[in-house]
């Protein structure tokens, strides 16, 4: 059963098309992350699902019910915002109960639900405080609580952690994940942070220009990006791309010929193409053994990061990065031998940018 279904959704502001003929099915109890850079339409899509924006065309279903033109409060959704959007003049308790009061629930039930949500989120001691007296993390918990008390089918998160510092962000991320495990609700989560996306999501939808580029599990997206955009977007540091041509199990780039016979091509494997290889998939030292592609490169810049070290260099005349162990002793100007496993690489058609 689908929890949320979107059918050929269009949204235009004047002549600017923000969502283009978009289809999406979200399973019951799934944690779906909408990922993309700013302006890709991910927040717009979320607002459409919430009913805060009217689509130009298309349909939205929640729990098999067509909600395209229903009020936000009639859709059975709860929403958490980036800026928390707590009502500043109401106490935490007031914030939590506002929606329930609007729905006309009896007092006793409101109290019970508020208490339950407060317990889950461990904000019981804060109930009488005003939002201004809370820390950022506490505020976001209250914001989540506000969605929680509503006892809804679908949770919508609009970049809920962006305003927090790194440590808090990591903590709350885990908490959200636990919450999902516990509640088993459908959650739709918008973010531009791929770490959040990878850690939280059952599936990730990567968006660009009002369309979904790829909808898959994090692992699939990481390992088998459907197109060059997704490949470049996911992964940090991002994927290296080498420009060249494909023919008969050989990739020619910058005068070098790489043997890629082990790569499982999905279609035709000739013509101009780009080879993508993640920096962490580049082998050095003992790992070189048996790799069909090997080369000596000169180290240009070293970025030690503690657990590992990033090395900037040039391969086949193109800028190239790779990752080494943090303990490796390496300096600018050193020459080092690297190797690439073609099965871990990705190839994209130069023109269509699709995965080959």
């Amino acid at each position: 059963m689908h929890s949320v279904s979107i059918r050929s959704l269009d949204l235009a502001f004047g002549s600017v098309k923000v969502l283009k003929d978009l289809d999406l099915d979200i399973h019951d109890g799934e944690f779906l992350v909408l990922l993309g850079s700013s302006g890709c339409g991910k927040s717009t899509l979320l607002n459409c699902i919430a009913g805060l924006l009217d689509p130009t065309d298309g349909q939205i279903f929640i729990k098999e019910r067509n909600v395209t033109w229903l009020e936000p409060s009639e859709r059975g959704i709860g929403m958490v915002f980036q800026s928390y959007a707590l009502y500043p003049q109401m106490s935490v308790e007031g914030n939590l109960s506002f929606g329930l009061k609007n729905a006309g629930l009896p007092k006793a039930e409101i109290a019970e639900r508020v208490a339950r949500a407060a317990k889950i989120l461990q904000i019981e001691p804060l109930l009488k405080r005003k939002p201004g007296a809370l820390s950022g993390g506490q505020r976001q918990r209250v914001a989540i609580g506000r969605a929680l008390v509503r006892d809804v089918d679908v949770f919508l998160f609009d970049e809920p952690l962006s305003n927090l510092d790194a440590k808090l962000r990591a903590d709350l991320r885990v908490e959200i994940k636990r919450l999902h495990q516990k509640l088993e609700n459908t959650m739709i989560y918008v973010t531009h942070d791929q770490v959040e996306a990878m850690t939280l999501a059952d599936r990730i939808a990567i968006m660009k220009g009002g369309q979904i580029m790829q909808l898959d599990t994090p692992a699939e997206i990481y390992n088998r990006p459907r197109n060059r955009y997704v490949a470049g977007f996911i992964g940090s540091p991002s994927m290296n791309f080498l420009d060249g041509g494909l023919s008969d199990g050989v990739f020619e780039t910058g005068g070098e010929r790489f043997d890629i016979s082990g790569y499982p091509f999905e279609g035709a494997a000739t013509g101009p193409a780009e080879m993508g290889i993640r920096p962490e998939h580049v082998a050095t030292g003992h790992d070189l053994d048996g790799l069909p592609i090997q080369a000596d490169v000169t180290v240009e810049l070293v970025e030690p990061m503690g657990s590992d070290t990033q090395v900037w260099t040039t391969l086949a005349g193109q800028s190239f990065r790779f990752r080494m162990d943090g303990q490796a002793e390496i300096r600018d100007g050193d020459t080092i031998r690297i190797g690439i496993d073609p099965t871990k690489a990705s190839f994209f058609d130069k023109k269509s940018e699709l995965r080959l």
Partner: protein
Amino acid sequence: MPDSNAAPRRVDGSRPPNPLFRNLTSKLAALPMVLTALVVFIGCTGWTIVHSFTGSKLLPKLNWVGFDQYEKLWNTRRWLISIENLALYGIFSLCFTLVIGFTLAALLDRKIRFEAAFRTIFLYPFALSFIVTGLVWQWILNPDLGIQHVVRSMGFTGFEFDPLYNASIVLYGLLIAGLWQGTGFVMVIMLAGLRGIDEDVWKAARVDGIPVWKTYIRVIIPMMRPVFITALVVITSGIIKLYDLVVAMTAGGPGIASEVPAKYVYDRMFSSQNLGQGFAASTMMLLAVAIILIPWAYLEFGGKKHD
């Protein structure tokens, strides 16, 4: 909270509602504004324009006279003087109000002592009506009682300062009182704007070694564009409406040296009982307002994109 917007619970959300009734409550709530805009501002303006082509005297009548009223208007010396006065007063008032308002605000913003006291002193005249302003300045500027009298009695018998009785400088007399009444409010707007500027900007300017005055002119003022626009709206709307102050201080005198368009309109409509002429003058004022404002309003409000 009973809420008509959320009240009609529709089970079926598949059909788009009639766009007219989408968020109906908000449209109903905006009705007073829509009616005011349409009936009062557009309707009454249209009514005025239509009647400017009539020979209406005491009562509005539709006895068409074509452009006669306009022809007469532009042949009337008092109208021409009124326009000239308004232009002069307007330019001076605009410049001085902005400069004084900003200077005072900048001075107050420099972590001075007694800021609240100074601010109150600069602002209180704004609480007083033009009748009061006119009366007190009329008195201070009265040559037989006020400044001139006092200075002369101190021994400077040749001292002359009688702007309200000297046609060539009467506008400055009005300006002294007008600035006294109006600059405080502009100062507050400016002060609010200055307080909204990030302190880092000051730090950056100090690090770069830019002198204070230069920082104000090159950095701070350009950052305060919206503030200046608000101030500009407040000042210019006051200038165009200039009427009460003139009536209270000089009644247009000496002679007709301090007449202004709004007073011409009022006098022609009600005193001369020549509505048509008054409406023609009003229409010219409206036209001037429209020429200045419509492009600005379009840029400021009309061209804004969704975000």
